[in-house]
């Protein structure tokens, strides 16, 4: 018994401290090497990074050529390896931004861009003041200014357009006076409506007047437009024009009137079902056939019509999503207050629904912005078209020219689209608060 001892006479050796779970080491252990498969994955990932990142960085920066005046600078001596040829992009940057717009008139594009920025930035900041005026200026006055600045203005408004406008307004006045014809009231009862119609007519006449006024700007034909400027013109026109059409279609699709509903559904499903390329082909080849003899649109306008119709179908579905998200109580509340259909939509439902779908609209815009590249297929030179065109310049023909051009385009599109998608996520998070249930 005595030789058994349960009492330790020596100090136990210290155990190793537990593995770190905090700090850099702990983080690496948990996120990179928590198990053997995980460690293999990490090594695999590191290998992929090794395969991809150094060559790209090397091409874009370390082996890149930064100075030069022609292809000589970017040709490898003795057939060696050469990186991006940035002087090429620098030399072509003017074309990439302005297309073939006349050099001395480029200030007009700059001014348009500047106006766009100072109107757009406050409109995008949720807390900026004067939101209503801002949006009216952006969606109403700015497009008019942009049309005049970019084309040179002094349009000839054809007589048939004036006649059509007058007929439409006469028709609207007739509708407003329906109660008088039906013997249900006097003209003074419809005074408000008549004043509104008169106001609208004056605005339309003013727009026609401004468009036909000669500001002394040199006319720049649209075939000279190109580059980033054309990309933005197509994308912004597409989205601005598609918004009202899209709202109408979305309302039509949810309408109780079978004819309206069916027409809206057919329109939306048709445009959503066909690829944009065929729409552009149609606008450039078939649309001229649809018009009466003597009426011609220029190529850009035809493409814009195609893009706007295409985008409006997608916009309609986005807006419809917003309309469906508005609780039924809002509709019923509006009806209980005695609002008519357009009052209910304009004052109660649409303001809420459109606010909800801002992220969706931004996403549609991103899609449209990327899709504008397709116009090069019908021979319009947007940024990608200009870049493709610049490769044919013999002065800069090197093996790396096309890689450099594509890299530049990729960086440009990535910055724009990624920035917009971040904005859309930010708005989504911001708008989510009020409707979280």
């Amino acid at each position, binding site marked *: 018994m005595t030789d058994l001892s349960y009492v330790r006479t020596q100090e136990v050796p210290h155990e190793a401290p537990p593995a770190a779970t905090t700090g850099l080491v702990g983080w690496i252990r948990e996120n990179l090497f928590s198990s053997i498969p995980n460690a293999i994955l990490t090594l695999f990932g590191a290998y992929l990074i090794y395969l991809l990142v150094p060559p790209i960085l090397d091409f874009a920066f370390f082996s890149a050529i930064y100075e030069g005046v022609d292809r000589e600078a970017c040709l490898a001596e003795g057939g060696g390896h050469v990186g991006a040829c940035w002087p090429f992009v620098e030399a072509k940057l003017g074309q990439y931004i302005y297309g073939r717009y006349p050099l001395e008139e480029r200030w007009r594009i700059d001014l348009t861009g500047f106006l766009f920025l100072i109107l757009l930035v406050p409109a995008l900041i949720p807390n900026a003041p004067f939101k209503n005026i801002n949006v009216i200026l952006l969606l109403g006055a700015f497009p008019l200014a942009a049309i005049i600045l970019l084309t040179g203005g002094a349009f000839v408004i054809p007589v048939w357009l004036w006649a059509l406008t007058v007929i439409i307004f006469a028709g609207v006045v007739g509708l407003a006076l329906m109660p008088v014809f039906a013997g249900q009231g006097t003209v003074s009862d419809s005074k408000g409506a008549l004043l509104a119609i008169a106001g609208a007519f004056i605005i339309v006449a003013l727009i026609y007047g401004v468009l036909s006024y000669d500001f002394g700007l040199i006319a720049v034909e649209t075939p000279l437009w190109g580059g980033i400027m054309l990309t933005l013109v197509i994308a912004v026109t597409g989205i601005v024009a598609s918004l009202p059409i899209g709202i109408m279609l979305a309302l039509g699709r949810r309408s109780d009137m079978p004819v309206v509903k069916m027409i809206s559904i057919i329109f939306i499903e048709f445009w959503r079902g066909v690829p944009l390329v065929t729409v552009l082909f*149609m606008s450039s080849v078939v649309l001229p056939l649809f018009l009466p003899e003597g009426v011609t649109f220029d190529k850009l306008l035809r493409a814009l019509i195609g893009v706007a119709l295409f985008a409006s179908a997608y916009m309609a579905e986005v807006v419809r999503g917003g309309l469906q998200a508005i609780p039924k109580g809002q509709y019923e509340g509006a009806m209980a207050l005695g*609002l008519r*259909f357009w009052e209910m939509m304009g004052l109660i439902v649409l303001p809420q629904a459109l606010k909800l779908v801002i992220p969706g609209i931004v996403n549609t815009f991103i899609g449209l912005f990327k899709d504008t590249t397709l116009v090069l297929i019908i021979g319009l030179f947007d940024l990608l078209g200009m870049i493709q065109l610049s490769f044919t310049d013999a002065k800069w023909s090197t093996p790396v020219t096309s890689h450099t051009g594509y890299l530049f385009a990729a960086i440009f599109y990535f910055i724009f689209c990624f920035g917009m998608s971040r904005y859309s996520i930010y708005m989504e998070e911001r708008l989510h608060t009020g409707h979280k249930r």
Partner: protein
Amino acid sequence: MAVQDTAGEAPGKASFIYDPKVRSIAAQIALAALLVYVGYSIVQNTAANLERQNIASGFGFLSTTAGFGINQSLIEYTEESNYGVTFIVGLLNTVLIAIVGIFLATIVGFIVGIARLSHNWVIAKLATVYVEVLRNIPLLLQIFFWYFAVLRALPNPRNSASIFDLVFLNNRGLIMPRPVFEEGSSLIFWAFLAALVVSFGIARWAKQRQAATGQQFPVFLWSLGLIVGLPLIAYFVSGLPVSFDNPELKGFNYQGGMSVIPEFVALLLALSLYTAAFIAEIVRAGILAVSHGQSEAAHALGLRHGPTLRLVIIPQAMRVIIPPLTSQYLNLTKNSSLAVAIAYPDLVSVFAGTTLNQTGQAVEILAMTMAVYLTISLLTSFFMNWFNAKMALVER
């Protein structure tokens, strides 16, 4: 909505012009009349314009000889074939790129989507970068990149990159051995078909047995064995009837074998990698949409990680994933029309491009082209409606 049938309550008071029903009908008649007028004038204008340009309308041009070659065709096509055959060739090429692209995009998309949810930081970040870069760069730019910057930069046929001297990659495309099916090789096909049928039968039987007795059966291994084994046995039994025609360098290009044109490779890579970025996001969202409680409950029931994924998470995630996935498939099919930019002979390129330029039958050709895409799109949405109805949660 706002239009309520209240006219009946106030008889004789209000004029009929205040009756919502009358207004609604009047508005619809006006709209329909306007559309009919617009449609009528379009038809009139088109007819007048065509007459002035001396273009005969109608589909008679489809039986005219095309007179141009197409560098990839799934059916027999020569320059003497007519425009109707051109249409079919283009359509088949569109279907081909769509099917192969969908297959590839699904695989890449699921891998990237799951990788984004990985606990491994490096893998998750890599997948995020993939998604953000690929979906924020226009597809056309990616197609140009693959076609002009990558495939054009490949070596010429004499200096091709090769795998075991059987598969060659050069700036003329990808050249592979072509299997030659000799007499008796149909047995292999029938064996494969039989294996498929038997596998389905085994799966059904195993499911019923498990429901009845709780005993499991290794269905996957058995099916794999059958599907690989039966054709292999058939191959040996029928006396090795399949041989391979290997490509050989003769002069400046390869002869024999089966070659994939570079346009196809570029378009396939661009389309499937681009769409995969969107699919990855759909997969990630679908998996995240299954609430955490589901996997916790499955673990609490004693299911291990694998069965939890297979039996609990994935079936519920698929319900969320499949509708947007289908619309991505549709997008891929529609985006394949960008083939026209690099002259891959798809429907838009050979039919709405070359054929239209040669015949000038713009209205008919574009109507046919659009009808094809519309049909595909409508069929897909019918499938979607059916699927949604089938998969909808039956709530109490």
